[in-house]
């Protein structure tokens, strides 16, 4: 049995509880109102603001936030129609001013705060903005947003709860999956070697080391090297692809990338490769031999990995 087959995909989602809100009062009020209108049943808080929760919960060294509050919306078709308040009405009530840019994307501005809605783009050409019918808000379609909806974490804050992406899901969108992975063209010689999707674990000593992150990228192996030869020459997971600017934050908190575990990889595999059968993504997801190659890098003992990390 290949290691990648072990993952059932039915693991319990993470739940984080806060007695006091880690956010500023205006942001807390906004999230509370959004939860009341049922947004988080099909939406997530994304961008830099979940970082506040991660930094509190996982005791990271620090976590920055921008004044840009982003919300991801799952497939617009699934959202049931409710006769309640729409998002523009809610924003108006909370004192946010709607601003439309030339492409039709709606942004809500109050002071230096900016609220944006993002939805998943299914590939190919797409309109620059998509109106989410029940909430009557236009969202910006971006690729791979649906990855953020893989086992999202529930955060209970005071008297309401929100959903945020699990940390491992946050690390993948920036890695732009189609560029990585095994890309087979018609001519078998012209293949690009696997470059990303690896795993991550916490260092011993950092708090809550279990169940944190499992996804990460590895260094691109030179195309002329075969997988076997590269492994012999000591190619291992070296670089990290975290969401945007958070790499330093995670690194400083003792969370390091090692090639261990492939649970998220497998989740993606199931989601894209088996379930949806997207031909344009089919070849980009690591196939079992590649995953087994990744797993073989587990041979490095943990102590050695720690030493390697401390040297850096």
């Amino acid at each position, binding site marked *: 049995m290949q290691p990648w087959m072990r993952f059932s995909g039915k693991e319990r989602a993470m739940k984080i509880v806060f007695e006091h809100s880690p956010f500023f009062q205006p942001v807390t009020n906004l999230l509370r109102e959004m939860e009341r209108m049922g947004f988080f049943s099909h939406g997530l808080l994304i961008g830099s603001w979940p970082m506040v929760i991660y930094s509190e919960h996982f005791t990271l060294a620090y976590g920055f936030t921008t004044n840009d509050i982003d919300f991801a919306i799952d497939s617009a078709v699934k959202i049931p129609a409710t006769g309640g308040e729409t998002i523009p009405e809610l924003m108006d009530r909370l004192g946010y001013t709607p601003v439309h840019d030339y492409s039709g994307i709606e942004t809500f501005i109050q002071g230096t705060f900016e609220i944006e809605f993002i939805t998943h783009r299914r590939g190919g050409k797409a309109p620059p903005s998509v109106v989410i019918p029940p909430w009557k808000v236009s969202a910006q379609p971006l690729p791979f947003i649906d990855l953020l909806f893989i086992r999202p974490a529930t955060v209970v804050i005071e008297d309401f709860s929100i959903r945020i992406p699990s940390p491992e899901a946050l690390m993948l969108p920036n890695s732009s999956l189609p560029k990585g992975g095994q890309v087979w063209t018609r001519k078998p010689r012209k293949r690009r070697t696997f470059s990303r999707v690896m795993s991550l674990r916490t260092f011993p000593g950092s708090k809550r080391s279990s169940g944190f992150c499992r996804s990460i990228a590895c260094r691109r192996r030179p195309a002329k090297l075969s997988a076997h030869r590269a492994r012999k020459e000591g190619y291992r997971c070296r670089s990290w692809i975290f969401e*945007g600017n958070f790499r330093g934050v995670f690194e400083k908190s003792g969370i390091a990338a090692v090639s261990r575990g492939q649970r998220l990889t497998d989740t993606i595999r199931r989601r894209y490769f088996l379930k949806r059968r997207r031909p344009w993504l089919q070849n980009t997801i690591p196939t079992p031999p590649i995953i087994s190659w990744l797993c073989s890098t587990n041979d490095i003992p943990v102590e050695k990995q720690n030493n390697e990390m401390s040297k850096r």
Partner: protein
Amino acid sequence: MRVKEKDDSVYRMLESERNRCVRVVEKICGELEKLPKGSLGQRKVKRGGREYVYPCLRYRDDSGVKFEHLSPEQAEGLKSVLEKRKKLRDDLKATRKRLATLDALLRKGKGHENSI
């Protein structure tokens, strides 16, 4: 020699926030151009020994201050738009201030980097 560890993530974060602020400023400026300028007022006009009061829109043009007569319905409609414009101008001011702060921080950071 002990050297402070350079943390790129801080500067990357500040830079991305700065770029975001620039985008917000552009967005707000674009929205402000679409909205009517000026403020609502009333203008008294004397005709035939009687005094009429009209709502009007006062705004400054290249040629000076202009008064545009409005119907009461138009004035009512313009009121909310002008309020929105005022609010957006306040937001623009706040964002520009933040942008200036970020610029100063980044300049300082770069200077510090060069000195090392």
